[in-house]
């Protein structure tokens, strides 16, 4: 197991290296420059050239990459061109917000989706099952930005239950517990949007995986020896049905950490998704490359965790 872990962790290094080269090349091949979109038209071409020179824009690509890599290896991810601030502090600031949003949404969706999926599988072809199936179909098919807009329209605008966007009531001067409540209040709508979509997926996975397991011989055996139905379902069946579900959850953690771009944009949630989107628009090369690395890192780690969890859930799986 330990050997396996070490090998998996070591593999991360060359992968990140590859990711950095590809992203670095792609973002620099994209037309435009950091001062092509949001700059005031009063500045002359000469002035712009000076700005670009100052950030090393005219260096050949390989030179730029080597310069960047040299610093990155020493832990210096560079300066954001837009924010004029170390890239690391920009990323940390946004990452925090993404973690809160994503983990809450994930927790909520797992808590709801797994039980509902199980119930819907055990009561196959009942009204409950049909309703769940229809809802999860809708959840999978509706694009999240549209769902988000609908939620805003009904829950915020018409009913006035939640604020429309942002992370806090700005200018309220709340402190302490009220500040926290206010934050939770703002968090709810984006969490609901994100969780609904995730739930739809998870429910379907749980349901089909559960259905498959219930058909197995050992479940019939368990029932035949007179175990209570609850024990059969939640102890014998669920544990086995969870293996594919865990994979899905872990992979989605990886993706969630890279920020839900659309959700964050609609709700003006300052997370990784917003950051990446803005940075690409602004051609903020150092930030884009670093974000890509962070995302790649988390996706790899999430996969690794999924593999480890297998071993716990299913004792037959062993890593030698």
């Amino acid at each position, binding site marked *: 197991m330990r050997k396996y872990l070490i090998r998996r962790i070591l593999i991360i290094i060359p992968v990140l290296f590859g990711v950095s080269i590809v992203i670095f090349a792609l973002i620099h091949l994209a*037309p435009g420059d950091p001062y092509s*979109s949001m700059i005031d038209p009063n500045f002359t071409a000469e*002035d712009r050239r000076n700005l670009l020179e100052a950030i090393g824009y005219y260096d050949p690509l390989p030179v730029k990459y080597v310069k960047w890599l040299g610093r990155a290896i020493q832990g210096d991810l560079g300066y954001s061109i837009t924010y004029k601030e170390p890239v690391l502090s920009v990323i940390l600031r946004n990452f925090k917000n993404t973690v809160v949003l994503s983990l809450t949404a994930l927790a909520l969706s797992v808590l709801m989706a797994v039980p509902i999926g199980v119930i819907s599988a055990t009561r196959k072809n009942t009204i409950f099952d049909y309703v769940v199936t229809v809802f999860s179909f809708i959840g999978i098919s509706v694009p999240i930005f549209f769902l988000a807009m609908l939620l805003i329209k009904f829950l915020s605008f018409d009913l006035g239950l939640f604020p*429309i*966007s*942002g992370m806090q009531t*700005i*200018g309220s001067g709340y402190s302490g517990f009220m500040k926290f409540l206010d934050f939770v209040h703002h968090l709810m709508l984006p969490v609901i949007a994100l969780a609904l979509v995730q739930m739809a997926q998870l429910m379907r996975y749980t349901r089909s995986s559960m259905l498959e397991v219930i058909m197995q011989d050992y479940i019939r055996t368990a029932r035949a020896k007179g175990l209570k139905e609850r024990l059969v379902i939640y102890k014998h069946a669920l544990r086995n049905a969870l293996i594919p579900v865990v994979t899905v959850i872990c992979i989605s953690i990886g993706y969630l950490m890279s920020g839900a771009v659309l959700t964050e944009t*609609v709700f003006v949630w300052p997370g990784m998704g917003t950051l990446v989107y*803005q940075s690409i628009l602004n051609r903020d090369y150092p930030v884009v490359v670093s974000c890509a690395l962070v995302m790649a890192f988390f996706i790899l780690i999430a996969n690794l965790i999924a593999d480890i969890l297998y071993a716990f859930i299913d004792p037959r799986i062993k890593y030698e």
Partner: protein
Amino acid sequence: MKKKLMLFSISFLLISGLGFAAGSKNVYRIGVFHSPTGVFHPAYATHSYDFYITRFVFETLLRYGPDGKLEPNLAKEWSASKDGTVFTFVLRDGIKFHDGTPLTAEDVKYSIEYVGFPDYKGARASFINAIKGVKEFKAGKTKDLKGIKVLDKNTIQITTEKTYSSGFLRFGINFEIFPKHIWEKVEVGKAQEATDLMRQPIGTGPFKMTEYVPDQYVTFTRFDDYWEGAPKLDKIILVKTNRDTAQAQLFRGEIDQIYPGSIRKTDADQFKAHGMVISGVPRNAYQYMTVNLTKKPFQDKRVRQAIAHALNRKGVVDNFLEGHGEVSHNPYPSTFWAHPEGMNEYKYSRDKALELFKTAGWNYDAGKNVMYLDGKPVRFQLKYSKGNVVREKCAVLFQQNLKDVGIKIDLKIMEFGVMYDEVKKSDYEIALVGQGSENDGDLSKFYYSDFIKPIGDNSGSNWIRYKNPEVDRLIDEGFRTLDQDKRQTLYRKIGLLLNEELPVIYIYHWPDNIVFTGKLKGRTIPPVAAYSYYYKANKWYFAD
């Protein structure tokens, strides 16, 4: 399971029912669609959204008044020598920076010469090129910039090499004054790395910036020692807002103002129904179609006039802008003082267009609806950029309009930066572009032949490569005078000439819109886009 659901829904209701105040009193919230980036230093800011901060926290010597003309701001008096080379500004007494330090002429000198320091790395170096002795100063040969003198603690004198007709605008409007005692401690070349200092700007404005949270908001708090009187509002906050939900937030009172860009008629009705004020601020700018003047067919002005007749420009204003704008016939909008009378309006007329094409030697085959030039059917490519909805619609409309006179147009939509680079290289046939003008009426940047650079050098600002000795002469004359009446006559003449010549085909002028709550009173918005949004913000208040 049921218990869990119950608990969840109870807490859900509790939190949502707590009744958080949607808008607390005396705080004015402005929704912006992009977060300011945190470069709040007047000499270094380049991002358009950072100007929402620098133009508020810092002030200029002069400002635009309600009539669009310059009026006193930090300077109470200003004058120029007869030959227009010596500019004198006298500061008001008793102006204080937000940290309590009094403002002096030394701060003004520093704020202007700052962009000429040899290690300055920002984008404003060219702003002081007219000042005497600037070359030596920039090269580091002299310690002082010869052309700027502090006469006493309130008086500053700036001397230029030649008559400088833009002097008042340049020195009075383009330089926000920042405190010398704070910034002289930081090396000029390293100012951008002084992130903390940059994000706590100290200026002289009616509100001081007290908090900046990237990607969320910027808070300004009242500055009671403001020279024009203490503000009535407690706070003004810029809130990052999603364009798609901004309207809903406005109606719900989460924010009090937005800059919506163009407004559709249905939106305008909605705004009004909710008690909002829509203020259209004229923009000294225009959208146009540029035809490549380095290519032979377009060098004949009759061809350009024919195209102008062929395009349904009025349709653009009526249908795409829904009336929020006007058809353009020259660079100056009708709200600007240099706008001339008696221009040719090039009304939408297929017959007129065909007639002009014919006199220019193009042959139209009415049966096939094909235009021929030198025996070949005419076909051009039209380049335009993504992002501006109206422009995208224009492209399609114009394609149809030109097809009506037998010209086939291939549309090519591109990313703005890429298109701009190609167009500057004269690598295009027809393109749709927008252009802003200087607020002082000078058009040299775009029409003066000295600013044409050879193809391949993209630094020439006259990239349409238009050359007309008469226009050059008039621009020159405009350079040499500070007499406002004389300049008006000159610039009107240029306007008329350009209207006749059509170096580009002018399409429309459009206003910048501000939508804000009708509860805000005491606000005046001078008719100069971008510079006038915080005019006398100390007088703003909420009516109950």
